[in-house]
């Protein structure tokens, strides 16, 4: 295929994609305006846009997003701070692996959100519950990926580095960590994705006064479908930005630069 043809095909794809979105939006808008459904349940697109714009302009939406991000980052940070070293220890020491692995296999199949009522009882409503739920959700992918990543480091590299006189310290920082990095980065990404889902659920169930999940759930009481849809847009946008911009650039700066193929599955 010639370059011109690929270009033409791509632009026609783009055109069709845009057309789909426009048609879908138009269909939704006519449905919303038809009065077949109550206006409160299916707000028109200009209403949603207006709500989104005003809540962004007066800062409430930003505060909600900030509260959610704060919870995610704290829980996710703790999960990485514990999951990463523990995963490395598990892969390096049999004894640690024998202890942690059975517990992990028992706890992992429990969805993090199942703990919400228990944590509410133990810690009361508020930030602690959401942060802990995020921590629970993010811990296992981090642990699992680090552990398999360190074990997947090619033994030949270890032996070669050892033969060239690398000590434990150099071996760890120069061989094991870079070697395990595709898995570790996949783990970070997966953990963040899980945290992002968990925080929304936790905020709905254990809602305090701020947070995107809480806004959506609270809007249900007042039949504010436009607020719900506006918050959904913000949630999707943040998730998308984190996935593409943050983790994409981490990947480019590390494993692509080091010339390691993406061997880990996300």
């Amino acid at each position: 295929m010639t370059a011109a043809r690929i270009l033409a095909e791509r632009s026609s794809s783009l055109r069709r994609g845009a057309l789909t979105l426009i048609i879908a939006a138009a269909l939704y808008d006519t449905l919303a305006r038809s009065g077949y459904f109550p206006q409160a349940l299916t707000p028109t697109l200009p209403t949603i846009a207006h709500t989104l714009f005003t809540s962004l302009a007066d800062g409430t939406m930003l505060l909600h997003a900030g509260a959610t991000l704060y919870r995610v980052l704290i829980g996710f940070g703790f999960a990485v701070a514990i999951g990463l070293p523990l995963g490395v220890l598990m892969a390096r020491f049999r004894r640690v692996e024998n202890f942690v692995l059975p517990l992990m296999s028992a706890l992992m199949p429990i969805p993090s959100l199942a703990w919400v009522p228990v944590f509410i009882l133990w810690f009361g409503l508020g930030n602690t519950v959401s942060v802990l739920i995020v921590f629970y959700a993010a811990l296992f992918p981090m642990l699992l990926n680090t552990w398999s990543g360190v074990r997947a480091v090619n033994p030949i590299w270890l032996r070669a580095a050892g033969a060239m006189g690398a000590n434990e310290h150099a071996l760890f920082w120069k061989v094991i960590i870079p070697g395990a990095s595709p898995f570790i980065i996949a783990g970070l990404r997966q953990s963040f994705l899980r945290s992002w889902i968990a925080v929304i659920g936790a905020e709905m169930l254990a809602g305090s006064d701020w947070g995107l999940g809480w806004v959506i759930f609270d809007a249900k009481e007042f039949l504010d479908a436009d607020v719900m849809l506006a918050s959904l847009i913000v949630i999707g946008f943040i998730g998308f930005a984190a996935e593409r911009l943050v983790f994409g650039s981490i990947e480019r700066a590390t494993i692509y630069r080091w010339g390691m193929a993406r061997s880990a599955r996300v």
Partner: protein
Amino acid sequence: MQDVVQSRKFAAASAHDSHPFWRAWRNIYPFVVVGGLWEAVAHLGVFPVQFFPPLESIAAAFARLTISGVLPHHAFDTLIRLTAGFALAAIVGIAAGVLMGRSRRAEDILLPLVSIGAPIPGLAYAPLFLLWFGPGNIPAIALVAFVSAFPVIYNSWTGVKAVKEIWLRSAQAMGADDRRLFRHVVLPGALPYIVTGLRLGLAQAWRILVAVEMLAAVPWGLGWLIFGAQEFLNTDVMLAGIAVIALIGLGLEKLVFQPLENFTVVRWGMIT
């Protein structure tokens, strides 16, 4: 999830030479340690017994609810919801994904919609679904289906696209018509990906179903059991419910995910 499988093979191989008793003990002793700590904390009365019940009262709650049939009823309803939602997602997802993989027009039309819907956590739609469909089973099943459809669509699409051009051409050269091409080349070629998608979709459905049950105020279901028990400070009932959730999750992993993986990887000799 593949990592877990690999690890298990590794662990099994390494423990192969030791006695079965020691192998079992190795898996049990972490639970003995954690259980012992739990018992100690519960009996020392650091926290009120209501909030931090000892293991025997959790077991008693478990036995009591199982014998009276309450717990099985909750578990059954949860499983029905999971199956119904997931079946819906599998049918729609595979159809849409295969269509997208086979037809450029369908791909152009559906891909933007899928890419916009996928990054939003499914649970965020829950209040919207509740608003539109009212509380109960319909929004719960619809939401589970909606959430688990994305990985199925995405993987089926990738799988159909990953079918080697040369297989298609050689089958065509040997005179296969469209239907045979689809049944004997495209579908088997894409199946490992489709199965991966189904597995991811089911895992995702399982992760949100419990939360959906809490939000949707369904009459029965494990999520509702836990959430309802919170009102009455029945921590033992909540933890018994979580134990059942863990058992079902383990069952899904052992009886569904692993056989599916072995089925595709072993039978087709492909690594998904």
